[in-house]
């Protein structure tokens, strides 16, 4: 049985109270919303804060609404709410699908989109009990100074494993962040950094309060698909998010392709404008995009899945995703292709 360590639990009613608590206990405090990532991580001894600040009782963090030409999703909206919300489904169906494919129904009933954006990176040698990690001499990310993935490595390569951020980045989303010092906003594309130990530009005393997506002026097609060992419960081992502006007949005006679950941050595939913009989505263009993705993706042994196979799957799934995007309008992946069971 895995037990939690003792801590003081705070239940603020307002955002102001929450950020003040985070400042007051700086260095020894973490925020908790759904807790679906933090609770098991605490049970594994990966985080042992003396204080927890609970966010679910803060009204300002809830709700999904259209405001000033944007879709605003409060950080404490559960993944079930995001997956089933009519505004999300209407404007960004692939975001609803990304949320609907996370883990399994119980996690989605509890976990939040803010938590998904701030999900801790994952690695075979990290997401283990204290006993397990100790037996191996710990690792760079927690308690140790060696990397078991890259021998002699000095940089942690634990994988960004969250489902909604790749899709949100492809959609050009912005995150709102609050702290006792004030509020700021960052494009999600600039939010993540390639450091597996702490992969987000978010100070420990800061909170993600909302994510905003500009409603598209032109019709867009969006698609999210992923590979995982089982079609439920598991984190992705490869995830692909696509957002494209397409004008008839099938001419791409712009395309954003974000691939994740390989390294410490989601990777926006570069150079697609040259390959695809203004062109029809022909077999040749699809192939060129798939090749470009393959060149830029280099998975590591942070998950026990053969890395050559994982890399080889990148163009395969990009190709399938593009074909789905072409054939199914706004992009619904065909069932049974390795995406979530949802």
């Amino acid at each position, binding site marked *: 049985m895995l037990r939690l360590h003792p801590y003081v639990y705070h239940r603020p009613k307002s955002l102001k109270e929450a950020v003040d608590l985070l400042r007051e206990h700086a260095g020894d405090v973490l925020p908790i919303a759904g807790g679906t990532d933090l609770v098991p991580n605490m049970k594994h001894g990966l985080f042992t804060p003396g204080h927890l600040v609970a966010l679910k009782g803060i009204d300002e963090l809830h709700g999904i609404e259209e405001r000033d030409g944007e879709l605003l999703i409060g950080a404490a909206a559960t993944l079930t709410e995001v997956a089933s919300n009519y505004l999300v489904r209407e404007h960004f169906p692939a975001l609803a699908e990304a949320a609907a494919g996370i883990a*399994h129904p119980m996690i989605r*009933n509890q976990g939040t989109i803010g938590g998904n954006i701030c999900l801790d990176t994952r690695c075979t040698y990290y997401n283990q009990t204290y006993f397990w990690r100790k037996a191996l001499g710990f690792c760079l990310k927690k308690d140790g100074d060696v990397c078991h993935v890259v021998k002699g490595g000095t940089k942690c390569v634990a994988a960004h494993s969250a489902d909604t951020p790749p899709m949100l980045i492809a959609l050009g989303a912005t995150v709102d962040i609050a702290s006792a010092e004030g509020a700021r906003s960052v494009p999600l594309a600039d939010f993540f950094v390639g450091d597996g130990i702490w992969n987000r530009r978010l100070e420990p005393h800061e909170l993600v309060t909302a994510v905003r997506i500009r409603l598209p002026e032109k019709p867009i097609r969006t698609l999210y698909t992923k590979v995982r060992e089982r079609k439920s419960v598991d984190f992705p081992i490869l995830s692909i998010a696509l957002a494209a502006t397409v004008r008839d007949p099938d001419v791409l005006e712009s395309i954003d392709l974000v691939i994740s679950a390989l390294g410490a941050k989601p990777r926006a595939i570069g150079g697609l404008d040259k390959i695809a913009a203004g062109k029809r989505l022909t077999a040749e263009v699809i192939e060129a995009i798939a090749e470009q993705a393959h060149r830029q993706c280099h998975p590591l042994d942070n998950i026990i899945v053969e890395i050559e196979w994982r890399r080889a799957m990148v163009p395969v799934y990009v190709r399938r995703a593009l074909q789905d995007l072409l054939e199914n309008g706004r992009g619904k992946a065909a069932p049974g292709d390795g995406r979530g069971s949802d």
Partner: protein
Amino acid sequence: MSEESGKRHDSKRGVSRRSFLGTMGAGTLGVAVTGRTAPAREAVTVESDGTHPVTLRVNGRRFDLRVEPRWTLLDVLRDHLELTGTKLGCSRGECGACTVLIDEQARYACMTLAVEADGREITTVEGLMHGEELGPVQQAFVEEDAFQCGYCTPGQVVAAEGLLRGNPDPDLAEIQKRMSGNLCRCGAYDHIFKAVRRAAELRRSTTH
């Protein structure tokens, strides 16, 4: 200690291992149980020691208790309320043995802090009984032989109950999707899916 829980510990059955452990737990806890039929005395107040007062409504009964913030809902249900139908499996949100309904929604009790369940309506597998009779989902699991070892079964039953409360007539795809957070290492999935279909029929034909 309330009359009702005191009676349970001093019953004529003598001291079982479970009631002994329960008494030990209650010593640090201060449980006040309010039965629907027997209004209990005032809740026992414990001096502030980092515990939080919470009110849990479990299977229609109200429990006022003080919990440590590090106790999960599963810890409280099993170790302090003696509702051991809800099982401890992986302890980290991967298996579903600890599934309970919180405000009608299926959730993992091992991932939910007891303080987070304050004021919520909780249903465990014990709450699906109709007196001494099995509820329709339990009855369907028996009829369809939907288990081998049975360890995951309470979680499966509660997940199925949660599904059927929201959708009284789910198709197979919906059942597979909504039951996907409950693993069965014996692999009794086909029978479990049949049992959920059967449970849907039984629920419709039962008036309760």
